[in-house]
């Protein structure tokens, strides 16, 4: 990503990114020439049916996977050129990931789960890490659950811990894969509102979801089908359509 892009606020940019996999019947193209961009502070969603390439797209943006063609730039970093360890370091500092099934480590308390990413980076002192983790748990509304193990938390609480963990190293980008898929509708709404608040505070949030009822919350929606980006709408375009049809 060029400096000009950085300056204009672009945080994520995919340029004709592709990802193919070897399959029994030959090569399988999971993502086809996808180009998109996200600016700092945007709250965006990726939608699409099963097998549309949502998870693959997220994997490329988070550096969990690498594009087989095209380019993936996040926070001025060409992810497609990094090694596995460089990608790990990159994720630690620049990307917070929230998983559908929370993926909290069951043997660590909520507080320790949040401290863990800070341990990997090692910038803050032990006491500072603890203070920040408590502050983050406070921010997501579960300060009093800090010393409980994930097992003793409800699904919504676990997802909040997962979000606090994603924020641990203060990354500019938060990526969430079906973060509400395992929650009841009330809790799901609360979680999405939390993301929305984080976006207002300057985080760039990218969420994979298949729940259409929350679509109005997102500033941008990327729709995938068969690995292709078939639609990219913004809140303003939605409003225009709504006004026209309304």
């Amino acid at each position, binding site marked *: 990503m060029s400096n000009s892009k950085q300056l204009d606020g672009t945080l994520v940019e995919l340029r004709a990114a592709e*990802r193919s*996999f*070897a*399959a*029994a019947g030959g090569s*399988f193209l*999971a993502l086809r020439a996808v180009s998109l961009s996200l600016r700092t502070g945007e709250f965006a969603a990726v939608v699409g049916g*099963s*097998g549309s390439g949502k*998870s*693959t797209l997220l*994997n490329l943006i*988070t550096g*969990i*996977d690498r594009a087989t063609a095209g380019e993936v730039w996040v926070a001025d970093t060409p992810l497609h050129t990094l090694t*596995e*360890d460089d990608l*790990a*370091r990159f*994720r*630690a*500092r620049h990307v*917070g*990931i929230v*998983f559908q*099934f929370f*993926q909290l*480590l*069951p*043997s*660590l*308390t909520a*507080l*320790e*789960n949040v*401290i*863990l*990413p800070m*341990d*990997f*980076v090692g910038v803050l002192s*032990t006491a500072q890490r*603890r203070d920040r983790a408590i502050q983050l748990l406070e921010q997501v509304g579960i300060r009093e659950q800090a*010393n*409980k*193990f*994930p*097992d*003793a*938390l*409800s*699904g919504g*609480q676990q997802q909040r811990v997962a979000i606090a*963990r*994603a924020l*641990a*190293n203060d990354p500019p980008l938060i990526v969430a894969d079906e973060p509400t*898929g*395992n929650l*009841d509708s009330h809790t799901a709404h609360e979680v999405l509102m939390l993301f929305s608040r984080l976006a207002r505070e300057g985080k760039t949030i990218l969420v994979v979801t298949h729940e259409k009822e929350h679509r109005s919350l997102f500033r941008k929606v990327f729709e995938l089908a068969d690995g292709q980006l078939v639609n990219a709408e913004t809140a303003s375009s939605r409003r225009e359509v709504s006004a026209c049809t309304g």
Partner: protein
Amino acid sequence: MHGLKKLVRDLRYSPGRTLTIVAAIALGMVAFYGVLGAYGILTREIARNYLDSAPASATLILDRVTPQLLDAVRQRPEIAGATRRANIEGRFRTNPGASFRRAYVFVVDDFANATVAKLRHERGEAIPPRGSVLLERSSVDEYDGDLGDAFELKVPHAKPHRVTVAGFVHEPALAPAKSEQAIYTYVSEETARDLGVTDFDELRILLREHQDDRALIEQSAEELATWITTQGLAKVRSIRVPPPLRHPHQTQMTAVLALFATFSGVILAMSSFLAATLMNTLMARQVREIGAMKAMGARTVNLISLYALMIFGLSAVALAFAWLPGDGVTHTLTKSVTTLLNFDVRDASLPHWVVVVDISIGLLLPLLMTIPRIISACRVTVREALFDRGLAGDPTGTGRFETLLSKLKKLPAVMAYSLRGVVRRKRQFALSLGLFMVAGGGFIGAMSIAKAWDVLLGQIDRTRHYDVEVHLTDLQDAERAKQRVSQLNDVRATEIWQTVPVALARPGRPAIERTYPDNAHGVFHLIAPPHEGKLLGVECVEGRWLLDTDTDGVVINQLVPGYADLAIGDVLTVAVAGEARRLTVVGKAIQIGVGATAYVSAATFTRLVPEARAEGQLWVAAASHATGEPSDLISHLEHGLDAADIDVKAIVPVSIVKNAMAAHFEILVKTLLLLAGLLSMIGALGLASALGVSVSERTRELGVLRAIGASARQVRDSVLFEGLGVGVASIAGAIVVGLGLALLVGDVVGEISFKVPLPLTPSLPSLALWVCGAPLFAALGSLGPARQAARIKVRDALVWLAILLAFAGTLSLSSPVVAEANKGVLTVQVNGFEDDRGQVVVKLFRREDNAPRGAGFRRINAAIQQRHASVSFADLGWGTYAVLVFHDQNANGTLDHNLLGLPSEPMGFSTGFRPSIWTGVPDFDDFKFDFGPGSNAIQIKVE
């Protein structure tokens, strides 16, 4: 047939685990086979060697054994054979200028046709011509002579006489010449006469019957002695009946080998347990395939047989691998022991019973340990099997240890994660820890026993303040010898100690000595120190040391027969030269390196012992004490006494005792160390496998770690840290096991060696070494799994997770796409609440989730509204599940229990199952249900 093919391919698919299983069993087998083989061969061969020599049932010491007496004895019906011998403690030197050294001279009546105490001819002449000797084969360690070589041989009261070596023989009942620092010579009656030995004084008899019955042997020997006396054929000085049919070292050797065999049995059991644990993980991965085979028509019994055959096959392969190294251990141990004890292995083949035990244990033990898991895995239904997820789900590990760790505020989360990882699989953790503890215990134990042995032997230096014993031929020469020796420059002090062999007296019956024919093993002496003797310190554990004023007081050491039962003030009656003498016990002592000894004052000794039977020893302390053999002092003593024309039987350095004992002990320590080494290897294997399984189970978690920023090195270090955790955790246990082992083995070894347990003496270097070694072994064991963990890629880990959640077999590993078919939402409606306080906890279990105690596969905590709650498990694959709900009234996340351990909060189970005292704690089958299309809601009532 194809089922077997499948299993073989499965094993080849996981070569690492297959090799580990085989290696684990094989290592245990090497130890077990090696030691058991040695035990079988040695116990058989020592008995065979000894019995082949037709050892005498009893020996009568007479004033003279004439040919007529011998013939008369041979005519007696109870006598199977008889021979006469003389056994003289003499000396030899290779040339006139050299120093004399110890030589036992055995005068043999009949070399050719002996029926008792037979010698096994090895080379050269079988019958030594006049002027020559046969050497016992172990003598070459002390005298490097061969056939035709000549040396000077001297017996007491006679001039040295030159003899040649005519041949070599083997007498298995004798200790190796090296340990006695003497040579054993056998001469004919003519040569003996030339040397100055005039008479045979030993009558050795072999009974026709009851050769293994000590009481009957004693009775027969007594009757024979009475008959000889009443017939006026000779005077009987003493009767000797050693333990019947048992080599002097047989009991000790058997006890030590039995100890080793037990230890190696424990090693095999632990290695088999490790193999069984590995097999369990293999079986966990097989469940789905079992379902497939069942779907194709396989019956449970077919599958159990198939998997049992697989274990059997793996054990057989391990057996094949272990056989040769095990044979090597057997051979090495056997060779060491036979060399130490001077006997031959004439048949090196394993006894049949050993082969049967080896094969049976080797093949059956792993199977026995695995069969419960095989049976449970093969009994699953097709449906359950097809939905099986393989290894168990995430163990939460939220026990006391984990809670404790969470209180350590300064502990980095990464380290907390590693430490909790150590204990999350408690059985595997216990196994790894147990293996390491026993390995370390074996090492520390072996080293501590060695140290205890040294400490005990140290008593020899601590209490014996002299360097050389001069055994005088005539007690009358003692004073003159003392004066002569005192004039030598390198002599600091000399004392005359008097001694006489004795036996426990039996009221109204002749005394019977337990002495073996070598005149050494089993001997019991009465010893008198000189007035104010200082060269021997006797440490009394009860009572006191002798006073000059004692008239019948005696101090006994622990080897004196009946020591444990004798209290201070009790009467000890000993037979001295055939006469019963009463002594009062005034002190009890523990002595090392000394045979059974009773100490009396010089005055008492003079009163009790006829002068002709008393023997004099001159104890000499060197001016400068050295730890080795004081060869210069011995040479000076030799020349000094020779110049004064004082005849000596032998000059014996004190160091001889320590040397002999050190040699006896070396094998014990080496074998223990070998077994500890094998255990350490099994321990490292155990840890490697446990961590390997742990890493496999945590693929998803490790993937998450990588996803949130952990580098490969950080993941690797985290697993290494877990291994180190096991190593460090094992240290305290290893010390406890080691000291326990030292105590146990020290008891056995000390008892059979000294009749006193070895002191518990922790070996600090071994403790220090294990403190460093345990983490090192643990780190070595963890390297493989750590590297495996570091190689996990985030995408693969997360795809793996997705596949687990997907319907069995519908996706291939290479596909990143997760099908969402065959899944649904399970709704659980709960009612029956008394109020709305707290929350409801709904736990969903699969078969492998240890229902109802485990954390469950998934769990939802929800609020209760109007005494009703409803929760949904989204994205749940079709399958068989069980649900437990409880009203978490205090919202602490756990089901509380009362003092009796019974749940104190209302609970309910799917299918309406209600536990009672008759049903006990339910298992999965008690409240399982099928979840699939059309069956997506259940209702549960808490009560």
